[in-house]
């Protein structure tokens, strides 16, 4: 009896939960509303099955509970009923499969005029590249990847000279224009996931994968990595900004290209050697991004797995063993080369020893970069 009641309560509670739950799909920002419709249909059909069977069981638990003197029916089954149920289930399953597959057929067929956007995944950050004015992306290969060429672009390919190499972790897309996303990875599996876009795909080193969509809602959306890619997986955050055509063009014009990295102090990700005097921390910054430091150490003061580098140089840091340390060059070098030697208080001792070890030039570059990150305040 209690169990029958429990089943009824479970049915009631789950239905109520569904109706009042604040946790539901994010508002859709792409053209794939059909996927939401397929989900909704599946929800209805499965909900009906869940409710009916649970309530039926609850009913039977009461109706056919043991009573003295009453025995169970001797029946062994009912072939006809079984076949009817099989048929009904098959119809239900087909009703789910048909819309699902028809949406899928559209998902895998990107329109020819879709704009190409490349996303390159790396432990633990994103790089974005757009075809330049020639509409073609330059060829790339992982063997070209280096600290100065994180995209692995083939320096001899003329098509790549005007490719737009987006600065930072924020990609912009124009509203209402289909875009085909080309996905690559230079190290491990990643997944470019924007919940509001609905469609997404894994990024596999050694091959290129794709998906396509048409952004239909303007806004700033978060990109999450959705395939476990190591300890920095939850920190691999990016952004996509969908905006009207005019704003998009303005943003696009400001992005560096391979041939013309922007002359702003923040520097571009291009290959051309820039005077280090104009950008003293550039080499160190590129190293920090290439070697994954940026996954745990922010440069804007925000909290991360490790202490932020903003204002780090010259600060006095408390250590986990109770001592304090003034952050100078020697300390920085020590904490890069042997990170487990001393750990800042309040942070987990998870920094891996850099493998391969940094060369002397690289160490100097990193330290120089950290020194350029001024700004007071606690980490």
């Amino acid at each position, binding site marked *: 009896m209690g169990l029958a009641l429990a089943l009824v309560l479970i049915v009631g509670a789950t239905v109520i939960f569904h109706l009042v739950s604040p946790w539901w799909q994010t508002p859709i920002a792409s053209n794939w509303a059909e996927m939401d419709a397929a989900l909704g249909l599946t929800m209805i059909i499965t909900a009906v099955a*869940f409710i009916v069977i649970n309530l039926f069981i609850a009913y039977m638990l009461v109706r056919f509970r043991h009573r003295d003197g009453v025995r169970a029916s001797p029946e062994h089954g009912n072939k006809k009923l079984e076949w009817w149920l099989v048929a009904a289930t098959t119809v239900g399953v087909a009703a789910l499969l048909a819309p699902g597959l028809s949406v899928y057929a559209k998902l895998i067929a990107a329109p020819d005029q879709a704009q190409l956007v490349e996303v390159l995944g790396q432990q633990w950050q994103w790089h974005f590249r757009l075809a330049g004015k020639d509409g073609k992306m330059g060829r790339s290969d992982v063997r070209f990847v280096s600290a100065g060429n994180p995209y692995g672009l083939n320096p001899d390919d003329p098509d790549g000279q005007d490719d737009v190499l987006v600065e930072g972790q924020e990609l912009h897309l124009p509203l209402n224009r289909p875009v085909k996303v080309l996905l690559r990875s230079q190290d491990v*599996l990643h997944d470019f996931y924007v919940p509001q876009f609905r469609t997404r795909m894994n990024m596999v080193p050694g091959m290129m994968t794709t998906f396509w969509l048409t952004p239909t809602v303007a806004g700033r959306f978060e990109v999450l990595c959705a395939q476990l890619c190591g300890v920095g997986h939850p920190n691999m955050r990016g952004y996509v900004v969908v905006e009207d055509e005019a704003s998009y063009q303005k943003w696009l014009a400001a992005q560096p290209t391979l041939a013309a990295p922007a002359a702003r102090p923040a520097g571009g990700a291009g290959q051309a050697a820039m005077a280090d005097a104009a950008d003293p921390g550039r080499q160190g910054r590129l190293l920090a991004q290439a070697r994954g430091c940026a996954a745990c150490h922010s440069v804007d003061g925000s909290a991360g797995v490790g202490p932020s580098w903003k204002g780090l140089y010259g600060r006095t840091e408390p250590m986990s063993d109770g001592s304090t340390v003034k952050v100078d060059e020697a300390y920085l070098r020590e904490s890069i080369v042997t990170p487990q030697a001393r750990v800042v208080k309040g942070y987990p001792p998870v920094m891996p020893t850099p493998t391969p070890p940094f060369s002397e030039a690289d160490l100097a570059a990193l330290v120089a970069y950290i020194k350029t990150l001024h700004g007071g305040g606690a980490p």
Partner: protein
Amino acid sequence: MGYGSAQVDEHGHGPQSFWTKYVWSQDHKVIAVQYSITAIAVGLVALVLSDLMRLQLGFPGKFAFIDANRYYQFMTMHGMIMVIYLLTALFLGGFGNYLIPLMLGARDMVFPFLNMLSYWCYLLAVLILISSFFVPGGPTGAGWTLYPPQAILPGTPGMDWGIIVMLVSLVVFIIAATMGGLNYVTTVLQARTRGMTLMRMPLTVWGIFVATILALLAFPALFVSGVMMLLDKCLGTSFFMPAVVSMGQHLGHQGGSPLLFQHLFWFFGHPEVYIVALPAFGIISDLISVHARKCIFGYRMMVWAIIIIGGLSFVVWAHHMYISGMHPYFGFFFATTTLIIAVPTALKVYNWTLTLWRGDIHLTVPMLFAIGFISTFLIGGLTGLFLGNVSVDIPLSNTYFVVAHFHMVMGVSPVLAVFGGIYHWYPKVAGRMFHEGMARLHFWVTFLGAYLIFFPMHYLGILGMPRRYYAYDNYAFIPSSAQELNAYITVVAIIVGLFQLLFIFNLAWSRFHGKVADGNPWRAASLEWTTPDTPPGHGNWGATLPVVYRGAYSYGIQDGDSDYIPQNVGPEQIEEGAAQPAHHPAEGRTI
């Protein structure tokens, strides 16, 4: 064979020591208990690991010793232990070993020495796995799916030693499982007693039998992928490793395919979930029919459903790979096969339900768990329809929807079947009844707790929260209420976890203080309940093997004193008017 010795006891044994009787035993019943205790012990370790994960998810950053590295290590070990070292070992090595000979009327497995070897091999595999906690770098944190390239590259915990130890442990386990599997399959095919045709076997045996065939054919795929990954790691080969730049360094690999690993892994991995589910299905069929005093509805179709599900399980694997980047056309094929496999599975759910119709339902503890199984397996299977349908899967893949789905369908319902099965057969194994009150409390906390934990989790997945995240720092699309929900789920999970100790305590306590059970307290019709001794002695049947005259589900008998007929009762004994089992005058008739 030396029977004539004066020292031989009534079973024909020579002098036995504690070691030969309980440790180096070749008796399937002892081996089954060894498997079960080892599996449950390592399962408790995995349970603690899951609670540690939940502590981090519910109260992020509050427990300093659970950092990102450790979180992923706990997560990987939790998953691998639960799926392989607990569920597979317990259903096949525990339930299979104990029940197959007894339900078939055999004296033991056909290869008892091999059987013993398989247990010790399994134990070795467990010890190797546990040792990964003590190697430099700790256990691997690559997720139980162990995907390359990350599993063997810097950035993933345990990439130096942990992954090697894990793969070695799996290879040893697969050898153990093959040894055991040979036994189960051959015993079912060759050692059935007279009259026990395949279509008179209880569904528990059918479930374990087909699951064993799946295991024998699927584990080689894990072996293949494990060996190849070991070679990639240790010899620098490039089976799965393309050219990569890892942490700024160009590695020497080239030309390998990470997708090849995924295909091989899931070619194993999907049958694996049916290796866990099919024995559970079989056990539930038996629990429901015994405790509702009614023949399982549609026995033949149930057998065919098990066989068809087993066969189809080999052609659905890439539904785990819809967003892997594999050729898109595969999506059509695998979505279709996956939704087809839903049909025989649904049939089983209907038949369990219809068995209750016009039954004589006794809400015993095993029956509680059986009903709990139907309810939780139902929701777990239904959410599978979301994930099997390729375009519905795409936004849900790698989110908490998947986590909730597989916990319901692998973690909750088969575990309820395990509990139900253990409570059901405990009187036969231990000769005593378990403590009723403790068992009922254990059921209610576990059943309701499972819903409380995993039902809301589906909605976090629909929202889009990815799985395998150590923390969710300030995502705009995740409301703060989601964090509160995570905290609440953690609290419930820890409570439910603690209550499992009640189950362990009950088993141990009842062994010595439980009411002495008669041979067949549930008045079940299958053969294992007709042994002359309870617990059954060595050789199971005494001097005479049973003969079988009917199927295992003769319940609902309307005339006569008893509402059931055991399998070994012949027609002539029924004509004599008393539906009593032959050859066992010592067994009481409790109606």
